[in-house]
């Protein structure tokens, strides 16, 4: 059975258009279900009804829909979008269509138009001159913009499951620590290889636990081998990476001697202070102050990074963007062309990035805490796979699968 929802409104009761529509559906061997009917109270009030029309084959359904269209009943998706102009900067009209991260099309002037830069929880603005539809975050909408309202004329394409047997067949399955990790990580390695071959970018979103657990050198190796095209993180990741580069400790704990170093609790503050004195991470590398670590590798290999600030930051480093809206825009800018996102040991940055990603981006979330992976999926980034693992172990295994040489 195939079906489509159609809507018809106007003076459809008095003119017998509604009974006619229902009779026509039956005559053409179809079936209907009245989902909603609102009858006008006075004779000048229009009535509206919404029907689910079904038929045994797509062909039959199309014949019925063609006939119904002539009677004024159009499938909801074939309606033109309703546009309302905004009255205020940064405020959508009250009935605005709130986007998902799935590929979306809008029907405007009888044609389906793809929505550019789709991301979840935004609005859709159509430029009447160029007929281009684009996804616009609430803060960027301008007074007078034509914003799509209601759901009529909006088509969202669900993601097709990959036909190839790859790791993303696990998509949508519950996160569990019981999964065969080695197989999953091997799948991630393959996906990274194919993303790179397809000319798409790989994004890594990292938390400071990468450094705490001793995973820093592995991430460096990924960067050097060109498996990372852009890095997102916060003040923490960069600070502890620099701390370990300058003092060999991470949050005061020696990374190679398994013990808390003496007076090392202040190392991270001294590290921040040193970088601030240099003017920034890039300057510190240029001046020869910072000679190793993840941030050093990014600067040396010209990998762009976005460090977004948060309220608990120490310092922060001069490279940290403390205005969250500016940071979001900077992240958006770097997301163009990203085909795979690897989120390691970061709750806030992973969710923030997940909100900006299209559903077509393969997303891998690695965390020791299964709740983080679930949280990401619950907030709408359902295209990802979750791996419950310690950051360093994951990165070590990944480097091994990617056959990256030890330095």
């Amino acid at each position: 059975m195939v079906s489509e929802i159609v809507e018809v409104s106007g003076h459809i009761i008095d003119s017998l258009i509604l009974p006619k529509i229902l009779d026509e559906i039956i005559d053409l061997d179809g079936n209907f279900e009245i989902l909603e009917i609102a009858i006008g109270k006075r004779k000048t009030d229009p009535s509206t009804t919404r029907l689910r029309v079904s038929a045994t084959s797509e062909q039959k359904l199309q014949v019925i829909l063609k006939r119904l269209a002539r009677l004024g009943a159009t499938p909801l998706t074939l309606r033109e979008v309703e546009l309302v102009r905004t009255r205020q900067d940064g405020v959508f009209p009250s009935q605005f269509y709130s986007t998902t991260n799935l590929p979306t099309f809008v029907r405007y002037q009888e044609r389906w138009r793809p929505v550019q830069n789709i991301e979840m929880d935004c609005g859709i603005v159509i430029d009447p001159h160029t007929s281009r539809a684009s996804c616009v975050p609430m803060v960027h909408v301008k007074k007078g913009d034509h914003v799509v309202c209601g759901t009529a004329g909006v088509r969202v394409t669900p993601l097709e499951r990959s036909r190839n047997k790859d790791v993303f067949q696990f998509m949508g399955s519950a996160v569990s620590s019981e999964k065969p990790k080695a197989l999953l990580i091997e799948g991630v390695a393959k996906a990274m290889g194919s993303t790179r071959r397809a000319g798409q970018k790989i994004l890594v979103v990292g938390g400071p636990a990468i450094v705490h657990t001793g995973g820093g050198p592995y991430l460096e190796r990924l960067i050097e081998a060109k498996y990372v095209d852009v890095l997102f993180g916060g003040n923490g990741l960069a600070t502890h990476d620099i701390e370990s580069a300058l003092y060999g400790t991470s949050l005061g704990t020696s990374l190679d001697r398994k013990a808390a170093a003496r007076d090392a609790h202040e190392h991270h503050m001294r590290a921040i202070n040193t970088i601030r004195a240099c003017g920034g991470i890039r300057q510190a590398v240029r001046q020869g102050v910072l000679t190793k670590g993840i941030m050093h590798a990014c600067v040396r290999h010209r990998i762009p990074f976005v460090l977004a600030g948060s309220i608990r930051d120490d310092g922060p480093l001069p490279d940290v963007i403390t205005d969250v809206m500016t940071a979001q825009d900077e992240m958006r800018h770097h997301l163009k062309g990203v085909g795979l996102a690897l989120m390691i040991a970061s709750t806030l940055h992973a969710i923030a990035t997940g909100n900006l990603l299209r559903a077509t981006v393969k997303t891998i979330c690695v965390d020791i805490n299964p709740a983080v992976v679930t949280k990401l999926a619950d907030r709408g980034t359902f295209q990802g796979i979750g791996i419950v693992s310690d950051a360093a172990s994951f990165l070590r295994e990944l480097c091994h699968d990617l056959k990256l040489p030890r330095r």
Partner: protein
Amino acid sequence: MISNYPDGKPAMPLPSLALLMCRPSHYTVAYEINPWMKVTRQVHQPVAARQWQALYDLLTRSLRVPVRLLRPVKGLPDLVFTANAGLLVGKAFIRTNFRHPERQGEEVIFERYFRRRGYRVVTLPRQFNFEGEGDALWVGDTLFLGFRFRTDATVHEHLSKILHRRILPLELVDKRFYHLDTCFCPLDATSVLWYPGAFDRYGWKAIETHVPDPVPVSTADALRFCCNALVIDRAVILHGGVSKPLRKELERRGFDLYELDLSEFLKAGGSAKCLVLRMTR
């Protein structure tokens, strides 16, 4: 809200009635967009001019109705059928969106004419085809709207939002009666002339339910375009050759018949009503 009747009461015709016509200087059958039009069956220009003049004289001299004239435009032969310009409601003009590209050139001419005379011009979104008074006729305060061949059913909801009136869409099922005004003619607030063959059973039922006194006409009368009659108060102007039973029906209701020869305009699928647009003075 646009109301045809400022005092809320239906009145037909309006005391301030005026008509819009266009001389057939460039009238010809240049294309075929309905079953009546055949480019091989051409219009005889001088005869057409004479027939049009007879209608004009009848309206202005005998019936003393003011008639405004639209300047004919070369290359727009159907401009003579001014009923398709749009729908006038008070001082608002709801402009036609012609289905056929051959006639779309007329839209701007009509729009300019009414804009210059201080009317508020309402244009419908391009995706709605709507052919004005050709497909939209008032019976009392209900607007009957013919759809399928020229006008789209979907437009009725849009119009009802503008007019705040009951609008009853009727599907036309015979290609020869491609506009509502070729098969449905309101005589006054309660009676209409109609040709049942142009509608399906849903249309019959809707008409019979909502029109107190529907007067059916025979196929022969319908094919002579008697439903394309122009009604001015108690005067009914139509193409000659009306059958005896129909004449009787009309006279019994107190209407005076004026029969004219409009054969040249039948060649393009139009008659008396198509040549005239109702407007307010």
